[in-house]
């Protein structure tokens, strides 16, 4: 049978007169499943618009079933169908369903509770070495700041930015420091607990986030920032030491310093964890190594922000309320014990 004669026959025969109608497996396949896809699409649109909670119990039960049947349809379609539009549609549908079904399970509140009970202390316990390094760099900075400023107080002006010094400087006398700083009068609830605490919180948090974020630059800026915090601290110690106020100043600092330095060290340690897994990726590719460990490092930073918040409250308000060095040391010891207990014991044995 030659081609032209066949054509002429077909044209003359008209619509499907003699030959059986064309049956495509892919078309039949599509006809059988299409309703399920459309149902899934409706559920997805609802969940994407208003969240999973907008779905009824019945719909929630159907969603994973429809999701799996859409994915299995995709597998079959890839094997038997050459309909490009159908394949693209199924891939798109599968992806949208995947995002809804495997999206973030927890809301903000649940996530927070889980984080404080388990995630944060566990992350801290897993990074002892980095915490030690961060701690040591602060100690080194403090020692250097102390030694330098003790001999020559002009170092203080060089190292401490003006807004942090808030009037304290090489010209401050012993009486000024005692009256205006260490045993300053209670400025009232609003000013101390809200205004001052808030300023301290924002300032500290920014530094902490920077320490963490700059871990991606191989951790060098993180170490520099840590040491610099130590330098400032050391310089102030020397300033007070030279005026015979060492013990009172340490009491004044330690009441909130335990919490604040703890948070700074944690932020720094988080940055160092990131730096370590960029520099030494172990068996993984650098990107994968970072992805595996970056999340636990981020838990440090989030937890540290919370600690900064508490430190800000203590520094802004409580410190002025307790105008007595022994009392301040007692509170400092108490906060140290609480944090230590929290990090060592909290969340052990909880479900993974």
């Amino acid at each position, binding site marked *: *049978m030659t*081609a*032209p004669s066949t*054509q*002429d*026959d*077909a044209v003359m*025969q008209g*619509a*499907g007169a003699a*030959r059986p*109608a*064309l*049956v*495509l*497996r*892919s*078309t039949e396949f*599509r006809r059988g499943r299409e309703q399920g896809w459309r149902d899934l*699409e409706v559920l997805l649109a609802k969940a994407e618009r208003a969240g999973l909670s907008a779905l009824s119990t019945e719909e929630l039960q159907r969603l994973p079933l429809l999701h*799996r049947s859409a*994915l299995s349809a*995709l*597998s079959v379609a890839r094997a*038997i169908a*050459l*309909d*490009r539009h159908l*394949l693209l*549609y199924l*891939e*798109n*549908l599968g*992806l*949208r369903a*995947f*995002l809804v079904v*495997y999206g*973030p399970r*927890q809301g*903000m509140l649940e996530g927070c509770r889980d984080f404080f009970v388990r995630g944060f202390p566990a992350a801290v316990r897993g990074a002892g070495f980095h915490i030690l390094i961060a701690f040591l760099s602060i100690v080194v900075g403090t020692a250097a700041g102390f030694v330098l400023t003790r001999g020559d107080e002009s170092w203080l002006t060089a190292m401490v930015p003006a807004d942090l010094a808030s009037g304290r400087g090489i010209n401050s006398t012993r009486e000024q420091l005692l009256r205006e700083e260490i045993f300053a009068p209670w400025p009232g609830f*609003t000013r101390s607990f*809200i*205004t001052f605490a*808030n300023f301290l*919180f*924002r300032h500290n*948090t*920014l530094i902490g*986030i*920077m320490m*963490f*974020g700059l871990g*991606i630059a191989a951790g060098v800026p993180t170490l520099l920032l840590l040491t610099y915090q130590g330098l400032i601290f050391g310089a102030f110690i020397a300033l007070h030491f030279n005026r015979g106020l060492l013990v009172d100043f340490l009491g004044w600092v330690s009441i909130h310093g335990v919490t604040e330095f703890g948070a700074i060290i944690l932020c720094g340690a988080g940055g160092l964890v990131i730096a370590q897994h960029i520099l030494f990726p172990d068996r993984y590719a650098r990107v994968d190594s970072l*992805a595996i460990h*970056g*999340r636990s490092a*981020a838990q440090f*930073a*989030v937890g540290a922000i919370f600690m900064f918040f508490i430190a800000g409250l203590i520094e802004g308000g409580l410190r002025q309320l307790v105008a007595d060095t022994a009392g301040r040391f007692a509170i400092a010891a108490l906060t140290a014990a609480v944090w230590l207990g929290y990090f060592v014991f909290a969340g052990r044995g909880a479900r993974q």
Partner: protein
Amino acid sequence: MSALDDKVAQFLEGVPRNRREILTPEGILLPVDLADHGERAVALIIDLFIWMCVTALLYVAIVAVLVEGKGVEIAVTLILFIAFIVRNLYFVYFELAWQGATPGKRINGLRVIDRRGGPLTPSAVFARNLTREVELFLPVSVMLSLRAGANHWETLALLAWLGLFSALPLFNHDRMRSGDFIAGTIVIAIPKRVLLADLVENSIRYNFTTQQLAAYGAFELQILEELLRRPRSARTTAVLMEVCAKICAKIGWTAPVPAAEVVPFLIEFYSAERAFLERERLYGRLREDKNSRPD
């Protein structure tokens, strides 16, 4: 299949797509399109605009309180605090609540997903947004301090150094920000697709021989499908007529196809070709395109 899909897309759009594949827990490979830099920039600008509007409203509230004249200090501080919280939690909140999309991303059809196809965890969302402070707000504040500071060189050096972090998405394969690196996430674009009717028609008015159908492969079939699905216009009609003429020449179809019959003829040819190729495929003889040798 995916390679064929890429080939068709590249032929039609002229540019290779940036596709990645994720493996879902069900063991299915799903292709995803990486978001363009432009789309992400627009999404970010929308988000920043919303953030700035909220902050501006807060400042209006400050002014209102200042005029009232009582409790000024508390109001100012509270507002500053809230603005700070808004700036840091805006992205985290929405990416958790809206399954990886902020308002800006949603408008642009973008989503944050786990790079390997796992679930997007809260810690990943926190991680990818914490570095925003370093990537975005720090360079901006340095830039703003430029005119005040006397030593510009120092500031410029700092700015260049920070700029490297901000420009990171331009320098890597997966367009990841530094936050994406830390959290192991990527940002993808999800177009909305609707299921259209199948092109295949069951009526048979033209009859093609096996030899004629064997002239083409899956690639040509899908290009033809795409052309037939385009909305009809003078331009597409002209293209379809050209295609029809070429097909007739290739398969040795001598009967004339009148202009009004071009689309029905092509649809018939598409149906027959697809039926033929799908059947061949079941027997393990898929022809990729017209140049591949028949087994």
